[in-house]
């Protein structure tokens, strides 16, 4: 598994109300996704393309348990999220839905930088700057779930046992 795309860069404490605004939670995911992060970046949902990478600071995804926070990003094609740290429920949701969430303390990137993410190696490369960054390695069973495309495909593949 390898993700290669452009960086969209955000700060600390990007919350679930920014990612999946409550007033659109009744709507289908296609519509909800159009409002993803619009309160702080009205261009994001229009400009992001499949394989692009969201880069952020601390506690990315703080707030609600709503999985639509991850699904909205996935719907827009976001290939991975690299953040200094993740809020606990968002982190589980991301892996459960097959979106690699890589904690990386020292990635420096600007919007539009060319980023490559290698979850199995815990490696993040900024090709625009020529820098390589060590991210947190996922425990093997969780990596297996992400690479399967999430917990549901993983459960379908192996029958209904217990993960991790």
């Amino acid at each position, binding site marked *: 598994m390898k993700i290669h795309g452009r960086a969209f860069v955000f700060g*600390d*404490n990007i*919350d*679930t*109300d*920014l990612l999946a*605004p*409550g*007033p659109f*939670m*009744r*709507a289908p995911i296609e519509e909800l996704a159009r409002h993803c992060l*619009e*309160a*702080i970046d009205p261009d994001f949902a229009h400009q992001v393309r499949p394989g692009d990478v969201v880069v952020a600071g*601390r*506690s990315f995804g*703080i*707030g*609600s*348990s*709503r*999985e639509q926070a*991850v699904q909205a990003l996935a719907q827009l094609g976001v290939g991975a999220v690299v953040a200094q*740290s*993740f*809020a*606990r*429920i968002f*982190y*589980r*949701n991301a892996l*459960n*839905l097959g979106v690699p969430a890589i904690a990386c303390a020292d990635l420096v990137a600007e919007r539009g930088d060319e980023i490559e993410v290698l979850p199995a190696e815990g490696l993040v490369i900024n090709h625009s700057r020529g820098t390589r960054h060590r991210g947190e390695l996922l*425990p093997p*069973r969780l990596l297996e779930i992400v690479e399967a495309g*999430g*917990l*549901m495909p993983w*459960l*379908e593949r192996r029958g*209904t*046992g*217990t*993960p*991790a």
Partner: protein
Amino acid sequence: MSATLVDKILARASGQERVVPGEIITAGIDLLMMHDSGGPRRVAPRLEKLNAKVWDPSRVVVVSDHFVPAVDIESAEILALTRRWARDAGVRHYDMQGICHVVLQEHGHVQPGMFCLGGDSHSCSGGAFGAYMIGVGATDITGALVTGQTWLKVPDTVRMQWNGALADGVSAKDILLFLCATLGMGNEGLVFEYCGEAVERMPMAERMVLCNMAAELGAETGIVAADATTLAALARAGRPFEGDLGHWRSDPDASYLHRYRFDADALAPQVAAPHSPANSRPVGDYAPVRIDQAYVGACTGAKLSDLHMAARVLAGRKVAAGTRLLVAPASAATITEASADGTLQTLTEAGAIILPSGCGACAGMGAGMLAAGETCIATTARNFKGRMGSAQADVYLASPYTVAATAVAGVLRDPRELLAESP
């Protein structure tokens, strides 16, 4: 071998002699709660695809609280699907009886020593009963419904000792806003265990606030060891606790990551400025802020004791001209009790509008949404941008005392001043 309360619960739930922070365990679930937003509508298609059934319907509770009462066809369909699914699966369903975290406690579902999963980030509220209860998303809920288990990384426990007593007009909400400002929202991997005289004095509803806002601290959960107050609440709920109370507490020499000590007497009412609970500071530090809407609602701030706090400030007073006060009691039972003891009348005589029980405007789903340029003060847990309506609205967070005092003044106001003047 000494252990924290959290260590003991997780060891029992995982069938291990002991657990070590950082270790990944698989734990058996004693109680699983989900609501109409993250529950059946998202879980049912997945269960069908897996051709799987609920592992133990007697351990599953569904609460419809997010889209209630239906305001459009989409929410009506979600609620109808939730009813059908709960009936077919044979699980307990509380339909429009109030907010899930409050309804669970009213019926005594969460008991000391339990390991519980909830499909909502404020599920940590259950920690007030000496249980380990965490919020997760719908895929985790699906996996748990099928297997009766989930995985987790054993957290470190941080001991939060609050000595002394809170001043009149200061509440558990002020403690948590203060902690959000002091510790920030990035406390992943930690459980906050609350203790000390100020906590021992608190009724269950206030202990629930301590644990509820573990979500805003970014912590795994919050917890308070059960005591006589807990047992009395469970007995009242009709499910008396029959286990060994002495076991379900941290050993005196247990190993904590940190031990904090705070002086409850010194705490002033706190207010969080937009757009983060971590933007909190004492109410007296603010320049006058004009308020369009005061909102008493949500699992964090509309239980009976919260309504009592608001009513003490509002008794014999009127909401300021140009300000509206909306009150969405946390549950149907809260409305019944607040009606019987005169609290509702005190609120409505002051000018409050009573809204249906449910997550409502706090979740950006129900009545009480905000327009661009409006300013709100709320007893809720979160003031993230756009949460209560327009992304151009400002939301301040405070206790029910402070929200009520602000509703009367029309601008941010220290409730201690009004309480001191009360007849």
